[in-house]
């Protein structure tokens, strides 16, 4: 028979829409409007999972997001496997496939349950006391065993194909929770014309009203009116999971997990990040379980969960019911179940000194032993035990917002103590309308579970206290109570009460553990949102990108930029391509897209003064139309960035930075300009993307550029090395600099970026006519290393001074001050024996060095020897046809000519220390 426990009438399910689903491969039927939990109960399935540590059979405890037991894996096909979902929150859809967890080989027959027999050996914290011998066994034996046993569900094997989105939102009032309290708050604000967002984690608005068959009419009125208000946004299936500083609230909306697999034209989940003028927390209260021996058996359920299954889902979770309660709610629930046709076997009222002493049954409860006031035991048969230990307000969000709590004695729980600036709690969450529930004695011989999911018993908590763990935070960590996926929603108050009783301190003074977000677990994908794949991080491309793609470029990443590493012609390998490009540049010329270089236009009457204070150089004699290599330090005196400063006019400069450096450099400059050199009239404009920059380098560079401009006189007499001209190139406005990063005669053409691709194409045509070709980053690296030109970040490492780089003379000696100058005279920065930039030539010219390799004075240096330096750049020089390197070496300049050693795994490589300039030290090519 299908759905034997479904009531003939009642509930909010759609009986006209039957749905099929499977649980552990068996097929069942439920209705639209069911959760997986209610549908399983309708089919009489109570055993739904196994506990974390002892693998005890577990049933459904609750009807909401607080569920600790009924965790399932939902399989929606490859990559769409989600572990650890709560059956009480999973909405039924046709074809739903649920799988139980933490059992092997099956839920019914689980070998892991054997751990119950040794459970005596596994009290709280047992693992701190053993598994220490022999030493290596922890890693090899014990830890792998523990790891295999632990963990709940299995992670999916394939990447998640679903998509996620994000929404920032602003409103006057955010209401969290759509029970009666939240609905009313939202209505009041909505009617007053405020913009309102009302969210609830459930599929239907209504909260506790959904469980009340008499309230259906009222609920409908509420929701109809809210829906009609255009200034109210209703977000169902949306959990408010975090409250951050300044009333910033994060919500996770589940958009399509409740729909059959076919419906995929929408994101799976959305992250709402809400800023409201005012937040109303109306998250209600969670019923507390009772702690007694065997309280974890399938068929033991929270009283109001029983009510919810009857009234909301039309399911009778049991026919013969025992109710155990500390408050009057238990009686109301009894009435409702009775009305639905259940037999109420008895009501155990803990206020009358009665308790549950034990439960019996295998995978489902079959009877309970009740200890009567006279200490006698009475066994009563039942198939359902409903319990109510009072209510715990859901103060999680209020507490996350750093709201203060106070212990309420009649309710035996913590409630909000006042309100916060923009946040208030209403309804059950504020402790309003909750049944008083006196503290009752907790009987606990035999396993009485406090934290169901992590299998923490009352004995574990007592043990922790006995072992000296008296702070609640210690007790939590030692026992792991409250650390499971439900974060102790049903257990924390009970754990506290037991701890307080054991320590013999008032519960209020023991305090709670810290509430942290998320309220319920949130999908990583939801938090990542749109940021995925190509959207994870912008890809920035150069003006020549499409051309490069078509010309065999192999790209590499520099920050966000994709830059050509080399151009592979007719299947050339990297090394061949790089060597060809190097030779071409030195023999004819090469063109290189340097557009990623940062560019700043600096103008204003005090621009020169400003530059003099920012760079180590003295620009006072830099004429209009000239440029200069410049080095910038941080205030600690260490090299930070370099570039070219070109003077366009008396009060205007064109300045370049490294490709990654622009943000950083501009920030640094603005910092000094705005807060230190405030009297200077200077303005900085980032023109990085205004200008495309193409380098043309090589003996024929002049011929190539000459073909593209008629307005600029390139003759060496007119435009010598380090000069700057404005004019036009390829009919585009251009800034042309004669500069070189290769040691060859070279130019950098700057044209407006909108013309970049066109000019590049023309440049390539012209270059081709002169036997020149494009070159990439790798060749550039070789060409500049042959000249001993540094790359900031490669030859420098955040501990490098100008003098270390051989730039001592570049420092404007007549300048009183520049950023970083004062630090250069600190003892260590001015000391001898610092690492200095030198060249290295392996004695065996064929031997390549590795970048980052260490350098020692002696050969065969034993382990632990001091490294006098390291290789910063290593490459094969095409023109010298040998291996060369740059390095930072202690006292390096004094060591030129001597031999040092580079220890490698298979032996030392002896190297000669040389000048860092390997090619054309006199600069004839440069100035040619």
């Amino acid at each position: 028979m299908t759905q034997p426990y479904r009531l003939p009438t009642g509930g909010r399910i759609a009986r006209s829409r039957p749905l099929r689903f499977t649980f552990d491969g068996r097929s069942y039927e439920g209705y639209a409007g069911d959760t997986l939990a209610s549908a399983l109960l309708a089919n009489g399935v109570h055993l739904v999972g196994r506990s974390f540590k002892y693998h005890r059979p577990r049933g459904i405890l609750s009807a909401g997001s607080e569920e600790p037991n009924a965790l399932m894996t939902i399989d929606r096909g490859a990559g769409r496997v989600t572990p650890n979902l709560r059956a009480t929150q999973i909405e039924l859809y046709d074809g739903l496939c649920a799988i139980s967890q933490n059992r092997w080989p099956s839920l019914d027959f689980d070998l892991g349950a054997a751990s119950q027999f040794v459970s005596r050996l596994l009290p709280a914290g047992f693992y701190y006391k053993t598994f220490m011998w022999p030493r290596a066994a922890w890693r090899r034996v014990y830890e792998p065993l523990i790891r295999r046993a632990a963990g709940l569900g299995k992670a999916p094997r394939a990447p998640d194909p679903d998509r996620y989105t994000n929404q920032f939102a602003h409103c006057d009032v955010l209401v969290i929770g759509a029970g009666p309290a939240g609905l009313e708050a939202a209505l009041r604000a909505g009617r007053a014309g405020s913009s309102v967002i009302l969210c609830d984690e459930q599929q239907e608005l209504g909260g506790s009203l959904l469980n009340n068959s008499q309230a259906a009419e009222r609920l409908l009125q509420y929701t109809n009116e809210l829906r009609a208000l255009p200034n109210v946004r209703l977000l169902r299936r949306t959990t408010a999971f975090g409250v951050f500083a300044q009333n910033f609230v994060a919500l996770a909306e589940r958009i399509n997990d409740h729909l059959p697999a076919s419906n995929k034209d929408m994101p799976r989940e959305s992250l709402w990040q809400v800023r409201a003028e005012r937040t109303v927390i109306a998250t209600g209260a969670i019923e507390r379980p009772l702690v007694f021996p065997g309280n974890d058996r399938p068929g033991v359920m929270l009283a109001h969960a029983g009510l919810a299954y009857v009234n909301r889902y039309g399911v009778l979770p049991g026919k013969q019911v025992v109710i155990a309660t500390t408050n009057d709610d238990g009686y109301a629930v009894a009435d409702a179940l009775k009305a639905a046709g259940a037999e109420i076997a008895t009501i155990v009222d803990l206020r009358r000194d009665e308790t549950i002493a034990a439960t019996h049954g295998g995978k489902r409860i079959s009877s309970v032993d009740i200890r009567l006031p006279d200490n006698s035991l009475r066994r009563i048969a039942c198939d359902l035990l409903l319990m109510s230990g009072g209510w715990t307000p859901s103060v999680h969000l209020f507490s996350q917002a750093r709201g203060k709590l106070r212990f309420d004695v009649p309710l035996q729980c913590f409630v909000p103590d006042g309100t916060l600036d923009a946040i208030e709690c209403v309804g059950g969450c504020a402790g309003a309308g909750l049944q008083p529930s006196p503290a009752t004695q907790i009987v606990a011989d035999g396993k009485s579970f406090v934290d169901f999911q992590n299998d923490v018993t009352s004995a574990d908590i007592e043990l922790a206290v006995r072992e000296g763990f008296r702070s609640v935070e210690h007790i939590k960590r030692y026992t792991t109570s409250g650390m499971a996926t439900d974060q102790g929603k049903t257990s924390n108050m009970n754990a506290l009460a037991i701890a307080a009783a054991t320590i013999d301190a008032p519960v209020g003074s023991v305090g709670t553990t810290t509430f942290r977000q998320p309220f319920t677990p949130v999908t990583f994908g939801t938090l990542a949102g749109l940021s995925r794949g190509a959207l994870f991080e912008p890809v920035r491309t150069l003006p020549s990108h499409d051309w490069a793609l078509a010309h065999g470029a192999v790209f590499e990443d520099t920050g966000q930029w994709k830059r050509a590493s080399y151009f592979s012609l007719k299947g050339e390998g990297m090394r061949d391509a790089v060597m060809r490009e190097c030779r071409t540049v030195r023999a004819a010329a090469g063109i290189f897209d340097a557009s990623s270089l940062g560019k700043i236009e600096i103008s204003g009457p005090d621009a020169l003064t400003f530059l003099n204070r920012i760079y180590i150089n003295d620009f006072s004699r830099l004429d209009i139309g000239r440029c200069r290599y410049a080095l910038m330090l941080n205030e600690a005196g260490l090299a930070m960035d370099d570039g070219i400063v070109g003077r366009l006019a008396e009060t205007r400069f064109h300045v370049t930075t490294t490709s990654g450096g622009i943000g950083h450099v501009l920030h640094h400059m603005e910092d000094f300009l705005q807060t230190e050199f405030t009297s200077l009239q200077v303005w900085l404009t980032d023109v990085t993307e205004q200008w495309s920059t193409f380098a043309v380098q090589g003996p024929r560079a002049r011929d190539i550029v000459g073909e593209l401009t008629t307005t600029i006189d390139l003759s060496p007499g007119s435009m010598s090395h380090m000069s700057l001209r404005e004019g036009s190139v390829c009919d585009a406005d251009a800034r042309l600099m004669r500069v070189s990063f290769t040691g060859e005669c070279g130019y950098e053409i700057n044209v407006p970026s909108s013309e970049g691709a066109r000019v590049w194409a023309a440049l390539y045509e012209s270059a081709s006519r002169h036997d020149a070709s494009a070159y990439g980053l790798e060749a550039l690296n070789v060409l500049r290393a042959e000249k001993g030109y540094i790359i900031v970040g490669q030859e420098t490492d955040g501990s490098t001074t100008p003098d270390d780089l051989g730039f001592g003379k570049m420092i404007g000696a007549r300048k009183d001050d520049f950023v970083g100058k004062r630090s250069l005279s600190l003892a260590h920065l001015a000391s001898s024996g610092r690492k200095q930039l030198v060249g290295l030539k392996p004695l065996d010219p064929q031997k390549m060095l590795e970048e980052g390799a260490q350098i020692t004075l002696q050969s065969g240096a034993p382990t632990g020897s001091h490294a006098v330096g390291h290789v910063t750049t290593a490459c094969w020089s095409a023109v010298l046809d040998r291996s060369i390197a740059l390095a930072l070496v202690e006292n390096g300049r004094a060591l030129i000519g001597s031999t040092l050693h580079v220890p490698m795994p298979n032996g030392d490589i002896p190297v000669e220390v040389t000048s860092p300039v390997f090619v054309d030290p006199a600069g004839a090519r440069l100035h040619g």
Partner: protein
Amino acid sequence: MQRFSFFQLLRQSFGNHVGWQPHWRAAAPKSSYDIVIVGGGGHGLATAYYLASEHGLTNIAVVEKGWIGGGNTGRNTTIVRSNYLFEESEALFEHSMKLWEGLSQALNYNVMYSPRGVLVLAHNTTDAQVIRRHVHANRLAGIDNEWMTPEQAQAFCPILDVSRNVRYPVVGASLQRRGGTARHDAVAWGYARAASALGVDIIENCEVTAIRRDARGAVSGIETTRGEIATHKLGLVTAGHTSVVAGMAGLKLPMESYPLQALVSEPVKPVMPCVVMSNSIHAYMSQSDKGELVIGAGTDAYTSYSQRGALHVTSQTLDALCELFPIVRRLRMLRNWGGIVDVTPDRSPIIGPTPVEGLYLNCGWGTGGFKATPGSGHLFAHTLARGEPHAIVAPFDLDRFTTGKLVDESTAAAVAH
């Protein structure tokens, strides 16, 4: 001290575990101590333990304002490694690594040191250069660290995506096999238990509110929420709060306190055998023995003592991890918290004496001091006992800021934690 062992466990299990004793004595403050350690985190407790066990000094108190191990020790991502770049740091962290290897046995407390390997990923040429420089430096120093191809890295950590067509491809990685994780709480409790057994007073709920100094300016004692305590040697081991406590002695430090967040996922069956760190994309992850993925990132942008951070920082960590490990996108964040890390200008710790006589510092471990816990305690105990820095910690003195001899791992290394 009641010895922990399997047999003890067995024996106690027959007595329903009523025979277990407190791990450490809940001491009340005495009127004076030879040395007072302020801060009951891993470093402070380790210091006390080594003072007692190696220097025979047992009239020692550790005063902790809350519960021991509740600071950064109790909220860190537990990565242990020693593959630092500079010789000074290599010596410091390797000293610690050696102690980790026998720590469970030394303390008779299973700290679950798990040398499962730490992979550091390179995503571009610069990363690769930096990481290989570490590998070379470490090999010379005798510290294990090896360079791996993307395929080798994936073989070691199968859920890693090493395909080339992703936004940040893995171009290589370094692996320190002896690196791994340890159980944070157990480290604090294990040191506390062993120190307590040797006579050290561990005093919880005892916040230092003032530092007393005599006419010469030397330390003479402290005021706490549990009364005054006299002492002539004070070791501040208060991590994120060091500026506050040092301020009580009129000291201003080169230090700022930032929020650093971490999070765990819901537990799942083992998917991740090692620790993976990626600096370019600012994230690192491992899986605890209980099954949660333990995840951390860079600090939040502003200084704060609020022990929480911003959601966008967490989001950015997770988007990066979902790119590196595509299967985790569907897993769920269970808990997200923050710590307060004390960051120095060169991201290296400060250990040693101060201009205030009798006042010693052990702080500035920033985002990466958990791994140093045993070594830091060991060397700081030596420094306190002898009144002068141990050679390994000498380069990490406060003076280095005045001479400019910084040990700047951050700029060179681009790797934290």
